[in-house]
């Protein structure tokens, strides 16, 4: 029986020649991840169950990114718990303030995940690494605790939706617009329990940064994972990052899919998701009436150097609207340094933005840019649920870095071409 790409990776890690959709399996894990919110819960479970050792065949990774640098005493205690766990079990991959970046940007950057590998993370956006052709999915803290002890996880083998991409994106359009557009088409539960498998000749026009953003938001369509085939762009990205031997898997040509969706990349507009669901998409060019108070550029979705470049290109030599706050957050220390080297930090600050150290911060309403009642924010993050970034009567509009930067200049939701003349 033919298998999808995801099914092939799962079969190989379960030691089976074949798996099919719906089958429950145990699979070996290459990466097991948690952060400063989910890690402490996992650690409590681990101790409660009486485990004394961790299985180091999986790369156990803890990243202190959500409420760090610690925003209050409780979050300081949470990080302390992770720190002492990492020390006790001598974990190589523990990332604390100074080394830490937002987990889903840090892990690919450091080569901690490679094509054909499996990853679970006690964080829903663990699906990001599908961009590299890996199987990766979000789980909860108890799964994480079990995986730290055994190096394995249980899975129901997913069926898949195939997303065929063709053509080339227009000016100012990026991976963020593609994934928002797709979520707008199929809805926030459009891929529930399933894999999104991207394919088609349009893939060659998507950079790794675009792909990471697209896979990152697969969860926002309810998907278990969102995966890309391994091609030249993947191979180039993995060079110098990872010296493990990795294996590329590809879907059988006769694999069966629940549904096939065709997207012509040229037809994807700059897209904005209005409150309070990512599926509530509108073209950015129609948002002129919506005045905003804050802009956030960063997060695991859009905190890469390419995202910073897109924002810098628009903000260069311009000023953000008076009275508006703009917060730029490069996702990792390396990206932060690169922003300095390339002069982006200066561009951002001269435009009136602040540039923060890497943190999740405002993305989940943690710190560094919480909204008051009635305030609106255009954000390059991934969720716009009620209260996500602060008060339950505040509003989050999801967009690309280019749209967010343009909106910061005009003070309302804007297509980037609107600022070309300013």
């Amino acid at each position, binding site marked *: 029986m033919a298998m999808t790409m995801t099914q092939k990776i799962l079969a190989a890690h379960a030691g089976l020649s074949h798996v099919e959709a719906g089958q429950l399996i145990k699979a070996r894990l290459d990466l097991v991840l948690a952060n400063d919110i989910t890690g402490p819960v996992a650690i409590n479970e681990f101790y409660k169950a009486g485990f004394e050792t961790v299985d180091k065949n999986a790369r156990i990774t803890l990243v202190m990114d959500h409420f760090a640098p610690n925003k209050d005493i409780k979050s300081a205690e949470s990080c302390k718990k992770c720190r002492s766990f990492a020390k006790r079990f001598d974990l190589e991959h523990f990332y604390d303030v100074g080394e830490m970046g937002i987990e889903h940007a840090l892990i690919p950057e450091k080569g901690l995940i490679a094509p054909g590998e499996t990853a679970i993370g006690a964080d*829903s956006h663990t699906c990001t690494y599908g961009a590299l052709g890996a199987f990766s999915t979000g789980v909860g803290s108890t799964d994480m605790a079990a995986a730290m002890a055994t190096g394995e996880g249980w899975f129901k083998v997913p069926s898949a939706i195939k997303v065929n991409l063709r053509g080339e994106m227009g000016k100012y359009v990026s991976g963020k617009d593609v994934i928002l557009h797709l979520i707008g088409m199929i809805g926030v539960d459009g891929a529930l329990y399933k894999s999104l498998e991207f394919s088609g000749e349009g893939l060659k026009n998507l950079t790794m940064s675009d792909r990471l953003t697209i896979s990152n938001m697969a969860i926002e369509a309810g998907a278990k994972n969102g995966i890309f085939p391994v091609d030249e762009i993947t191979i180039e990205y993995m060079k110098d990052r990872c010296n493990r031997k990795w294996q590329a898997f590809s879907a059988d040509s006769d694999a069966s899919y629940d549904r096939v969706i065709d997207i012509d990349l040229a037809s994807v507009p700059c897209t904005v998701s209005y409150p309070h669901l990512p599926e509530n998409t509108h073209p950015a060019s129609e948002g002129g009436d919506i005045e905003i108070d804050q802009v956030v550029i960063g997060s695991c979705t859009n905190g890469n150097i390419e995202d910073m470049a897109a924002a810098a290109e628009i903000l260069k030599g311009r000023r953000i609207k008076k009275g508006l706050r703009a917060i730029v957050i490069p996702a990792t220390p390396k990206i932060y340094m690169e922003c300095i080297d390339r002069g982006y930090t200066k561009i951002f600050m001269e435009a009136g933005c602040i540039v923060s150290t890497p943190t999740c911060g405002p993305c989940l309403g943690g710190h560094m840019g919480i909204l008051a009642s009635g305030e609106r924010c255009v954000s390059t993050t991934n*969720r716009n649920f009620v209260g996500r970034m602060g008060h339950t009567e505040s509003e989050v509009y999801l967009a690309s870095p280019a749209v967010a930067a343009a909106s910061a200049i005009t003070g309302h939701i804007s297509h980037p071409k609107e600022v070309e003349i300013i």
Partner: protein
Amino acid sequence: MKAQGNAIKYGNNVDTDVIIPARYLATQDVKELASHCMEDLDKSFVSRVKDGDIMVAGQNFGCGSSREHAPIAIKASGISCVIAKSFARIFYRNSINIGLAILECDEAAENINEGDEVSVDFDTGVIENLTKGESYKAAPFPEFIKNMIDKGGLMNSIKEGR
């Protein structure tokens, strides 16, 4: 195993951010989590929920973040079972892993009204609406998952497996 209580009903796409807002995630104290359960969707939930009550919702319940604090808060608030048309997948597995009973049943989610008295038999998957005198049938759990629930969740089941 059975559960019985009054229904507390919500709509589609109830996300984990409203079940337990991120501003409370710095704690792992279950009582404290429970005291903020559903706060951003329904401020009155905490004061009106009684032990054994059953939460009923539409599609994609528990979508959003992987925070296990969400099923933990619901369980600690006294809810004995969540019935929905469908669950977001991470919420689904977290609930099983921590032992919060959840059932998918379109008919029950459609017909049970706020306040109805409901009883659930987990062995048969039969849901009875005592107020309306109706009964609905949920799909039973697959064997693998039933075993895990019988052993008291994921951690116990892997310990036994060693």
